[in-house]
């Protein structure tokens, strides 16, 4: 399909199909209406979205229905299943809500269509991290599958990633965060400043890392590098020799009894921490919040080597066209227009369009979550539960401080299969 048929095809088809609603659709398709949501209620449109769960939130579906009249059907899977579904059942979804490292595997198979950035109302508001890899002009680009490296393609039919900004986006970034180690400040008994501290003999039998190979290996690499055992060319794409040395190191540590357990699911990490079985471990930010919600002190400790970061976005299924494609663009423009961003920011994640999200947050919320200021009043979660008392400061500080010191992004390695095999040996050893 060429560009011209795409543009005109939209209004013609809508006209034929739906009569009255077509006016709105055509106006939207031609770009006449911007920043003003079209109500699709007269012509009920359903978008099927699947993804990895973090951002598959019912609140978003409800608000979307309310604002746009678009019904959002959401399915959550784990990341491996998401990758498989994206590739093998491309007609089963309209919107893919996946992480960038999954996109790296999925996009070359041609199941996601590039999106025209000129149709994205808030493209300019998207933080530069997703365009050139730099949060601020003097930031250092992190290792691993950095989102900007898989963010653009050359044209509407291209299947290989472009080096820089091109006007054709693979996914619009929506949610991301910086991960680090969680600690029990009351039990560690000293300052924790480095990833290497998890290997401190003082914490023998009181540490844990996560048993999800693709992420666990990155945490292990952060630890190895911090200890000065090995410097990686790219932690996100190790050579077999680097994988061997990392796994051998992990096996030695395991046999020496350094680890208490390996966790696979969110609740396991919460229980290990809150019961005091471990005092320092890999953790995700909502798990830290869950431990604190029990009244147990837990800190998402910033470390001098930096964070391991992850990011996800929304991609358009290749089969979308016509009114459905319009609705998908409309949904994405709504998604980045602020309400969702504010919601995600208040959960401790970050929105990709920060400026728009700011309008949907109170000054105090913005100060606490984004600017790293002490909270003036109690900080509430989106569903109204007190997350932090007045006076609290976010672990790791401001958005710039946290996302500015990302050392590597979650990634998929060329030697992925070999890595997984060796990881299984580590667990069996």
């Amino acid at each position, binding site marked *: 399909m060429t560009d011209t048929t795409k543009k005109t095809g939209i209004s013609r088809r809508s006209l034929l199909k739906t009569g009255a609603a077509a006016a709105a659709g055509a106006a939207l398709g031609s770009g006449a209406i911007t920043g003003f949501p079209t109500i699709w209620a007269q012509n009920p449109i359903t978008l099927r979205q699947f993804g990895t769960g973090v951002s598959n939130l019912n609140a978003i579906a409800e608000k979307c229905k309310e604002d746009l009249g678009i019904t959002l059907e959401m399915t959550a899977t784990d990341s491996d299943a998401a990758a498989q579904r994206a590739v093998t059942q491309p007609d089963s979804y309209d919107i893919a809500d996946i992480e960038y490292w999954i996109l790296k595997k999925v996009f070359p198979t041609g199941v996601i269509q590039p999106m025209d950035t000129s149709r994205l109302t808030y493209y300019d508001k998207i933080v530069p991290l997703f365009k050139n890899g730099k949060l601020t002009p003097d930031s250092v680009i992190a290792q691993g599958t950095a989102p900007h490296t898989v963010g653009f393609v050359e044209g509407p039919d291209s299947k290989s990633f472009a080096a820089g900004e091109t006007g054709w986006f693979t996914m619009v970034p929506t949610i991301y965060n910086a991960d680090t180690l969680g600690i029990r400040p009351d039990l560690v008994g000293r300052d924790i400043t480095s990833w290497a501290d998890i290997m401190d003999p003082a914490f023998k039998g009181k540490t844990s890392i996560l048993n999800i190979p693709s992420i666990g290996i990155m945490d292990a690499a952060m630890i190895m590098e911090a200890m000065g055992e090995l410097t990686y060319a790219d932690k996100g794409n190790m050579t077999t020799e680097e994988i061997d040395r990392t796994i051998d190191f992990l096996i030695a540590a395991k046999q020496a009894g350094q680890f208490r*357990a*390996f*966790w*696979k699911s969110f609740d396991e990490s919460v229980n290990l921490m809150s019961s005091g*079985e471990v005092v320092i471990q890999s953790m995700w930010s909502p798990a830290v919040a869950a431990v604190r919600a029990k009244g147990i002190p837990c800190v998402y400790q910033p470390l001098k080597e930096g964070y391991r970061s992850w990011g996800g976005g929304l991609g358009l299924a290749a089969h979308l066209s016509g009114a459905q494609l319009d609705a998908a663009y409309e949904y994405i423009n709504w998604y980045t227009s602020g309400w969702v961003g504010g919601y995600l920011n208040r959960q401790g994640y970050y929105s990709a369009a920060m400026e728009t999200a700011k309008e949907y947050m109170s000054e105090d919320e913005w100060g606490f979550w984004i600017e790293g200021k002490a909270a003036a009043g109690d900080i509430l979660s989106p569903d109204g539960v007190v997350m932090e008392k007045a006076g609290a400061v976010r672990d790791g500080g401001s958005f710039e401080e946290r996302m500015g010191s990302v050392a590597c992004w979650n990634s998929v390695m060329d030697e992925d299969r070999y890595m997984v095999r060796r990881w299984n040996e580590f667990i*069996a050893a």
Partner: protein
Amino acid sequence: MNTLLNRATPYLQATPLAVILGFFLAVPILLLLIVSFWDYDFAGMYPGWETFNYTDTLGSWVTWKTYLNTLKYAAMVWALTAFIGFWVAYFLAFHVRSATTQIVLFLICTVPFLTSNIIRMISWIPVLGRNGLVNSGLVNAGIVEQPIEWLLYSDFAVVLAMVHLYTLFMVTPIFNTMMRIDRSLVEAARDAGAADWQIVWNVILPLAKPGIAIGTIFVVTLVMADFSTVQVMSGGQSASVALMMRNQMSLLQYPAAAANAIVLLVLVLVMVAGILRIVDIRKEL
């Protein structure tokens, strides 16, 4: 015509079960066998006739170590459940006089089964943990100075939970066999001057063998196929065969997991055949 019908009757009578077993047992295993020869990547499975799933599985020391580890669990759990199961059944069958009390006591044995497996397993965690009931009790009583680490996330924890979960599978068949033992045999042995332990050793134990064999088959297959107990109670530190399969499935390596399942199936069938050679359980049926 009539003779034909007569000859067909047993086949007709066997048909429903054959259909059910064929559909729910034979066909799935056949599919498993076929898939185990396929090729795969993250995106899907590709029909073929590859043997690398087997060579990869059998050629890796991880597999052997994992199988050994699982067999170790099976042996330990079997020994403990057989010992406990035998004495519980013995008590129920020979020491409890009235049939009503027997049934009531037996039902009490099954009460834990009203809750789910997972719950019964997870309940051990707050008991055995570093700050758990046992450790805080021991520390407060001054028996130990530091909490005992190996109570949780260790082989001990795995075996303890499995014994707890699976002992009843041993008690039931042994109890059932013991109830069929002719009491006059015990009286005859006593008249002949046998001591209590001689009666147990020379009369009851040999006659209870079919029950022990059936219980053994239950326990061994349950332990060999277990993944959740090993994962939860070892804190992910130990591997079991089924856990290895689950890891492969979560990474969408279905053909590899299928090959593993076939290997496990063959091993378990060999073990069951071995048990059946030693003990004739048909006496029981």
